[in-house]
């Protein structure tokens, strides 16, 4: 039998609940949260794979997967519908030993070793489905190969005063990592892990089996696998990335990252045709700005009808903004109808709802209001 193989397989961790996104993730997984007018968060990672010519991708789902699954489909939106490879959704499953939910990030990969083995890859790329960035993974893979590394971790320099929020790595002059600290109080480094790892597959495979057999492990890459590899005899290197990269794990960071798109020279530059960010395109007519409508410093997507005043906001597909309504500093998610005479400031308006005439939604720069919110302002 002819044995086909892939040099590298990407695995995207997309099962997290994202509870710090409050009501936004009540019904959808974090990677499926709408972003930037026409995208969902996972589109960035999937587009990176596609643009980096990585055509074999497993997506590990667990929490509220319905919308995520229907968004991804057979992957054709990202050119990932391939004869050999392509995108596969990998939910937890049942076998003769019983059913097991994914207990940790490493455990999720362990449970899908047979998926990876089917492609007989040399390398496995571990990714998160909830980061906003553009990155060529082939460059990182080249570094991994040049250094004959067992593991390469993509890192980014963060300001020293914010460093204690991240998993930090200390590297020598050859970028070899000798220390790993998970969210330390006193940071020894300002190189933060971006949660992007390239492993040589035989090494990772052995580590996963060892981890599975140990009693006291939480089966997490950041807490268990990587510290053990750094301490042990493995060659672990850092790959330095510079450019736009955001973890949009909280309401405020999601809001801020959306607002970063509102500028002509924003770092993410979604208008770059050499690195298109792909998504499922809506079947909607162009946007219509009526004679009463005003749009300033904002992005608006197809299918919208703007009859009110939109300032410094991100308006997603098929949104209607009624007359005399003012929407500012706000993200409006798809298919929502904002009636006439509505005032919205510093908010995230969820999808598929009607905001009744006369409604006032006011948040602040430091506390973005999610509307509608069932549990009140402090619901986490």
């Amino acid at each position, binding site marked *: 039998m002819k044995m086909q193989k892939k040099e590298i397989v990407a695995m995207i961790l997309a099962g997290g609940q994202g509870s710090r996104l409050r009501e936004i993730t009540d019904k959808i997984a974090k990677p499926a949260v709408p972003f930037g007018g026409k995208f969902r968060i996972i589109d960035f990672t999937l587009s990176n794979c596609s643009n980096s010519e990585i055509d074999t991708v497993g997506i590990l789902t667990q929490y509220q997967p319905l919308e995520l699954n229907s968004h991804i489909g057979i992957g054709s939106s990202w050119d990932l519908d391939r004869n050999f490879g392509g995108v596969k959704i990998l939910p937890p499953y049942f076998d003769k030993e019983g059913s097991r939910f994914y207990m940790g990030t490493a455990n999720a990969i362990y449970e899908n070793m047979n998926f990876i083995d089917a492609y007989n890859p040399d390398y496995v790329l571990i990714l998160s489905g909830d980061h906003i960035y553009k990155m060529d993974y082939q460059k990182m893979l080249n570094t991994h190969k040049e250094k004959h590394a067992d593991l390469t971790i993509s890192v980014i320099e963060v300001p020293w005063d914010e460093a204690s929020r991240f998993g930090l790595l200390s590297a020598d002059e050859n970028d070899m990592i000798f220390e790993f600290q998970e969210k330390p109080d006193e940071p020894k480094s300002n190189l933060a892990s971006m949660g992007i790892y390239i492993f040589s597959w035989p090494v990772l495979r052995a580590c996963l089996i060892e981890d599975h057999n140990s009693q006291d492990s939480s089966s997490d890459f950041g807490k268990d696998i990587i510290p053990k590899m750094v301490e042990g005899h493995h060659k672990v290197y850092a790959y330095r990335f510079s450019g736009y990269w955001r973890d949009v794990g909280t309401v405020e960071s999601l809001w801020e990252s959306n607002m970063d798109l509102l500028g002509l020279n924003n770092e993410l530059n979604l*208008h770059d045709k050499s690195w298109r960010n792909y998504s499922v395109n809506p079947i909607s007519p162009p946007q219509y700005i009526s004679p009463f409508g005003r749009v300033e410093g904002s992005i608006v997507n197809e299918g919208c009808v703007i009859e009110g005043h939109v300032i410094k906001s991100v308006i997603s597909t098929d949104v209607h903004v009624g007359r005399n309504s003012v929407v500012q500093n706000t993200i409006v998610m798809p298919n929502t109808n904002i009636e006439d005479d509505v005032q919205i400031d510093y908010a995230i308006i969820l999808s598929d709802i009607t905001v009744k005439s006369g409604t006032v939604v006011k948040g602040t720069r430091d506390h973005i209001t999610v509307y509608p919110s069932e549990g009140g302002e402090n619901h986490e």
Partner: protein
Amino acid sequence: MNDVMGIINLSESEEQIKDLTLGRSLGALHIFGRYRIIDFQLSNMVNSGLSNVAIFTYGKSHSIMLHVGSGKHWGLDRKRDGLYIFYPEINSEDNIRRLGDLENYRNHLDYLQNSTQKYVLLSRSYMLCNIDYKDVVQHHRNSGSDVTIVYKTIEKSYDRFPNCDTLTLDDQNRVIGIGKNLGKEERYNVSMEMYVMKRERLIKIIESAIQRGDARFLKEAIFQRLPELKVNAYRFNGYLSCIQTINNYFETNMELLNTQLCEELFNKYGPIYTKVMDAPSTYYSEDSYVSNSLVANGCIIEGKVENSIIHRDVRIKKGAVVRNSILLPYVTVSEATNLNYVILDKHATITPRKMLFGDQSNPFVIKKNMVL
């Protein structure tokens, strides 16, 4: 609707819109910000449940080819039936390329013979509307006629349908004459050039026209045989526009700056599908001013835009003023430029400090790739 197949005939008169069809066929012309003209017929057919659709091209077909591809965006990439595209070719028997589209049908008669559907629906791309063909075919079946022609009754607007076919009907809605609209009557029935008949009937018409040599165009062949047939008419009452002149193209785009009409044309019997381009959302800068305009994705707007249609990936820079104009994809309008009643074709670039003024009845056309 499993027993109906659709044909879109692209041999259309382009004489009065030729500035916009130099490198493309009329069906591939951009319209309403994100569509091409052929999208409407393809979507109408798909929304009515047809799954065997053929496009008979008539020259300059590469843009149609690039646009429709496998038919995937219309759900026509099927194992069984799906989308077919046929090109005119030189007859291999006598190495002569004949005038007229009938030759194209003759060369691909196999396709018609091998299709399994009982009925065929013939149409053009340039009659823009959102129509339910299920109802047309039902009407045809109930009427027991040989051919059904779709028409719309027009009052007092000669300009919008110049030289279109007109139908003279008796009180039973039977077609008793077919003429040309010269603008001599206030009220007339314009033929929408959509015909329903049995597939066998169409094959017979093509074969006999070739046998007798009395027609070069399919439409000509059908019309010549109408006296022998029972021909019925189906009345359409929705929005209709015929894009065969520059003025009509301009007027039709402008008419869509009306949300009710948008809703009808883009949604009435199903959505209008088109090839997706993955452009990001459009950015409106803080200095921009946009009013009463239809804008597609991928644009960056820093200037002033009024009563205009802006296609994908257009850039309008600071201090530019665009009024009553249609900008096709990838157009760049530079700083301090003033445009009024202008159609800018794809990839056109207007350099800084230019003034271009057309007129409502005579919009100024800047051709594809031009730098001014």
